């Protein structure tokens, strides 16, 4: 009888202590992390972002149109968790023009994005 009592109370103790250890007061571990399985789930620790100061309109080859050329931006990332998205957006309010690209970031510690903005 004693042994089965011990089993019951031991089990109850284990079952009750785990949520407390992971709880808001103790917080030794976090057992209920949201799974980072989807694209866009996760986060990145960004050290620095080098965005170009200028973008240029170039006359297109054998055409009357102009091409907007935007240099690459560089993001220095210290750590990536999951699959966060990097988005690069450029807008020219005067022309009501706006374009953006979105790319999932890889898990390398140093990751360099090359952006070739669309022609317009």
């Amino acid at each position, binding site marked *: 009888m004693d042994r089965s009592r011990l089993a019951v109370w031991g089990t109850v103790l284990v*079952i009750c202590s785990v949520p407390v250890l992971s709880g808001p007061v103790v917080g030794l571990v976090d057992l*209920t992390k949201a799974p980072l399985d989807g694209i866009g789930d996760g986060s990145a620790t960004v050290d620095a972002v080098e965005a170009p100061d200028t973008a240029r309109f170039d006359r297109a080859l054998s055409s009357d149109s102009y091409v907007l050329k935007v240099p690459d931006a560089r993001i220095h990332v210290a750590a990536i968790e999951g699959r966060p998205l990097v988005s690069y957006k450029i807008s020219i309010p005067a022309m009501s023009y706006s374009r953006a690209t979105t790319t999932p970031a890889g898990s390398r510690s140093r990751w360099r994005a090359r952006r070739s903005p669309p022609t317009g």
Partner: protein
Amino acid sequence: MTASDAVGDSDAAAGDSVAGDAATGDTPADDHVANPTLGDRFSTVRSVALRVFVGDRLGLVVFLGMLAFVALYWRVGIFITDNYTLANALVALADGHLAVEEAVFGPDLETPGMVLHEGARYGRNYGQIVFTLPFLWGLEALAAVADPGLILPMLWALVLVALGRESGRVLGRPSLGTVVGAVCALVAFAVNVAVARPLTPRLLPVAALQVSAIVATALAVVTLYRLLGRVHDRRTGVAAAMVVGLATPVGFWASLPKRHAVVVALALGICYALFRSRQSPSPDDLVSPLGFRAIAYGLVGLSTWVHGGEAFGIFLALIAVDVPTARSNDVRSLAVLGAVFSVSMIPFFVTNVLISGNPLQPPRVLSSFQYPTSGAGVGGSTGSAGSGGLVPSLIDVLPPILATPVIAVLDRGGVFFGEFITGANTLASDPGRLYRVFVRGGDIKGVSRLNLSQTIYLTVLEAAPIVAGVTAAYATGGVRLSQFVHRAPKNLVTRLRSRSGAFKMSPAVTVDAFVVALATSFLLMYVSELPLHAQLTVRYLHPFYPLAVYGIARQAPLRRAFGTHWQAGLWTWVVGVLLGSQLFVVVVAAGSLGRGEAVQVHAFAGLAVAGVFATLAATSVFTDRFDRATAVAGGLAGALGTDFLLLSGLLYFQYGQYALPAAGWVADLLATA
């Protein structure tokens, strides 16, 4: 499976009476000395609580088993838009005010059932909301120290520990049960922790509503066990409880924040109290027969707080059966009943006064102004028509202080009776719609369109094929009627002579009559609105499921068939659940069926088996040659009900977050299959 094994042994092990077992069985090896210690007092309180809520140890196993089962497909979240109303009203009440000011859940406060009165918004079903408050406080207290995402798995694992321990004791193998329960609980908990996800504390009010509904369901199921345990034997009680909990939509609505679970629990509680009020008292009863009769009325009073209309239907059924068949309607009895009934209505009146200023105007009636098409509009006109002539002249004579409540009662009465009259008219003019409610639904114009254009409407038989067993009752009724007609002339006279004065019904027959009256009352109340969208399993007639299972359990031929061949029935059920559910998944995946199509696959399978079971059940009245086949068909019908519960919870109706992360993991697997 274990519960039914328990049935076999429990009769031998637990012996004599249902109540005696509970009174003696709980204290392990303590010697009771003269001065009670704190521990003794605790165990006294525990054994009294055990007797009051679950009856005995086997009842506790049924209760815990139901809790453990429902959690398997419990999704924390909002199922239909009505849920927003209750959840927001609960949050408001937990903040200390009745008026709902903020839409914590949902896009806004314009949700079904929310009522507007003098610029403030109110919810409904306040009895259910108040019943939920302690559960909300409990969950919030736990969330203060424990990880919210692990609270529900923790509680479930603790239920498993208790279930193992109590099952072991019922089976006479206490240490084995304890160890098995503890190991299963630890493993299950570890698996859940391994795939755990965070649960936002914002959802705790929804979870609390669901916990209260699950507890109400488990209480309902255990009450059916207790009732049939007394009417017949505990084996019948456990079997019926398992059928209701595992094989009918009672399990479907168990974890959904709607009133249905609570209403079913109250209705079955009234059946039980009514039965006990007719049984001859035994010395260790906690309550006298008159007390039980008063409890029946008290539960009716409490159900007004949950849903005034349904409570009124229950009330009519109760007085129609109770008053003519009572042993005595003397002044003392009626005074006790009146007093208890009045006291039980106080919460309802107080809530109404706080909201509308009128004790007889519940929030639900206020809402009828928003939905002029519902029964209330029809009832209003009936009420005014019925009160012509004598009644107004009476009211004119009465002093205003008396006339006001009389007018209010007549007004309300008109609203309520109106629904019954409309229902009776509908039944008379359009009996064909019963087919759409009880037998075959399919693609009903108007219903499917409002069900997100999906054929997710199931009739009573499609949702719970096991209900087909009531044909045995019809067959028995037919046999009795023909016998009665054959020897009528002589019999009638002697019977009338012996029954001079009041009817003398046996306790069980009294409950039978109440069950029929209750079912009729619900049917009349709702038949004019059915078939309707957002019903899924004809939830307006939700009490039909436990009442039908009660009706099946009352049939001696079916008790004989299942009693003799219970192993065949049980194994068919097990195989039907394990293989059948996989078969359904395969069919749904292979045919890449949509949700509506998948539900209709269940409907067709259910109808086919229900047809066979209905035929065999009716045959069982005349011969015992097909008893084995009857048990197998019953097992299969039950398995189809269970399959629908599990697959609707884990596959077809995925929403929110699973209370058990492991169940969510399984659901993810099924979704990608």
